[in-house]
């Protein structure tokens, strides 16, 4: 029941955003859409965090999603953003399915370091690949939806609407997944893996599934960010990008599927405001915020909302 209510809230908020779209200035719509893209990646990290796993390389799949979208445009002339997001998710999920056999064996710091190494491998490859624009990156074709190309004035709004719809659908599915026995295993894995094994469940399989879902979500996020910004570069796979996603996830907390989107929005606002006021100290503001949240709100900002109930 509780899960349903949070989803209704998320749906209402997203609808409000979509409705308010035309009233918002272009730059605000841009920030909101990027926040939704990053929220999807934070949601992916949240899934892993619930099982006690911190990936220091989630940017790998964010970048794969973005470059899939970019390649579709560059090599096949496909600019449909829905198609880009679906393909981005599929490619990311496929890569994760292969790598998952390896990663599902790792825990703690080693899980983080291996995922970091994998994302840096992609970075190293992209930086040197001429066909994909090396360090300069490539431009994304202007977004279209179902073959229709929105005019200059409304394209941001259209991207926002499609982004919201896809994010809502994805969150709905993730919430459904978290309710299944396989999804419920996360907390048990974090608590005591060996007992989970004694219960007859396979920890490796549970983590593998989680890893693939997380990759698909990040792939969607990457493709959405790509079509929103209109340009992609290898920095999307760099470790600082992964750090940003971890920041958002920790800031928001892991209690609800809505939290990552809230976190991404707050991150976007802190980033924009702090950068505007003092471009040389916005990272410091973020760092202090992160430190305060870890020390005083270990469950994240979300714990300020719901009544303190054991999850």
């Amino acid at each position, binding site marked *: 029941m509780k899960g349903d209510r949070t989803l209704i809230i998320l749906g209402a908020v997203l609808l409000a955003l979509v409705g308010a779209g035309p009233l918002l200035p272009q730059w605000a719509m841009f920030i909101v859409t990027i926040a939704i893209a990053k929220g999807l990646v934070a949601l992916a990290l949240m899934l892993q965090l619930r099982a006690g796993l*911190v990936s220091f390389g989630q940017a790998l799949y964010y970048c794969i999603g973005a470059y899939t979208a970019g390649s579709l445009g560059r090599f096949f002339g496909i600019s449909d953003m829905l198609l880009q997001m679906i393909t981005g998710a599929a490619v990311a999920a496929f890569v994760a399915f292969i790598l998952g056999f*390896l990663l599902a064996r*790792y825990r*703690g*710091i*080693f899980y*983080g*370091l*291996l995922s*970091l*190494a*994998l994302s*840096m*491998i992609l*970075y*190293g*490859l992209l*930086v*040197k*690949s001429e066909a994909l624009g090396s360090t300069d990156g490539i431009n994304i074709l202007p977004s279209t939806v179902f073959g229709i190309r929105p005019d200059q004035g409304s394209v941001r709004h259209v991207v926002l609407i499609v982004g919201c719809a896809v994010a809502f659908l994805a969150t709905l599915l993730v919430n459904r997944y978290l309710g299944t026995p396989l999804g419920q295993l996360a907390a048990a894995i974090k608590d*005591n893996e*060996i007992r989970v094994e004694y219960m007859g469940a396979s920890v490796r399989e549970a983590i593998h599934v989680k890893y693939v879902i997380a990759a698909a979500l990040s792939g969607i996020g990457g493709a959405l960010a790509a079509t929103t910004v209109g340009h992609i570069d290898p920095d999307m796979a760099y*470790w*600082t990008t992964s*750090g940003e996603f*971890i*920041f958002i996830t*920790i800031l928001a907390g892991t209690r609800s599927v809505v939290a990552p989107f809230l976190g991404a929005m707050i991150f976007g606002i802190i980033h924009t405001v702090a950068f505007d006021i003092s471009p*040389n*100290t*916005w*990272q*410091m503001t*973020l*760092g*202090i915020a*992160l*430190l305060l949240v*870890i020390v005083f709100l270990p469950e994240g900002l979300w714990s300020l909302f719901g009544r303190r109930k054991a999850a």
Partner: protein
Amino acid sequence: MEQILTVIVDGIIYSAWLFVAAVGLTLIYGVMKIVNLTHGSFYALGAYAAASFTGAWIARGYPPMLSYAVLLASAAIITLVFAPLIERGILRFMYAKDEVVIMLITYALFLILEDTIKLIWGVDPYFIAEPYGLLGSFEVGEMTYPTYNLILVGIAVVAGGGLTLLLQGTRVGKLLRTVIHDPEVSRAMGINVDRFYLITFTFGSFLAALGGAFTAPTVSVVPGLGVEIIVLSFAVIVIGGMGSLPGAALGALIVGLVRSAAIHYAPAVELFVIYFVMALVLAFRPRGLFSLAEPRKI
């Protein structure tokens, strides 16, 4: 043949630099079990301090040969300002937390230090090329190298050898190994574990700053200098096994030689190959090449 020689010399110089940059990270992880992302910040702090102090030293017309001592001193001074502050002021309250949470805390500190550097030194680049050219050059085969590079090799040897001697041959080293083995029992036995943590963190950070200080004359010192060092150092110490000194040396050699070979034979894979080796080691020997089996805890 000539090219192989070049690859080896380049590789060794690069390895020495990597070792100095990474050995502090492995020391801190070995003793305190902290995956310390502020390591890159200390590298950058060292580079900036060196640029300021050495720049001023040379501008005043003091003997340029002593600028090497100034490089060393700048690393020491800047570390003494920031490292004890961070360890005593923030980190020591966090030791009870999970390894991953402490890593996130050092990430927050890294973000804060990044901007602290910009506040102190601004965003314009600094150049201090003088110490680099002072010593002339030496030749290997047909290639000419600045003699300055040998200083880094020297520092790497002294740092690695000194730390090994300290750990294996002295009373302090024995106590430190006890702390590594079991901090709680050490405390019960009357060892001042807090002091060891403070000294380890400061010294480990000093080594990072030293790496930065002696790199400063060879590059332009710009914001973001420490960002790349963090992942590179991780690659180095993960390959050898985190917390192992010989491991860090081996990791530095492997990464150094592999990268130098890649630059000469296949420039397209230069960056890729480092992290590929790191992933390969993690895949087959997750605790590094120099690791012992560890029991699974229930």
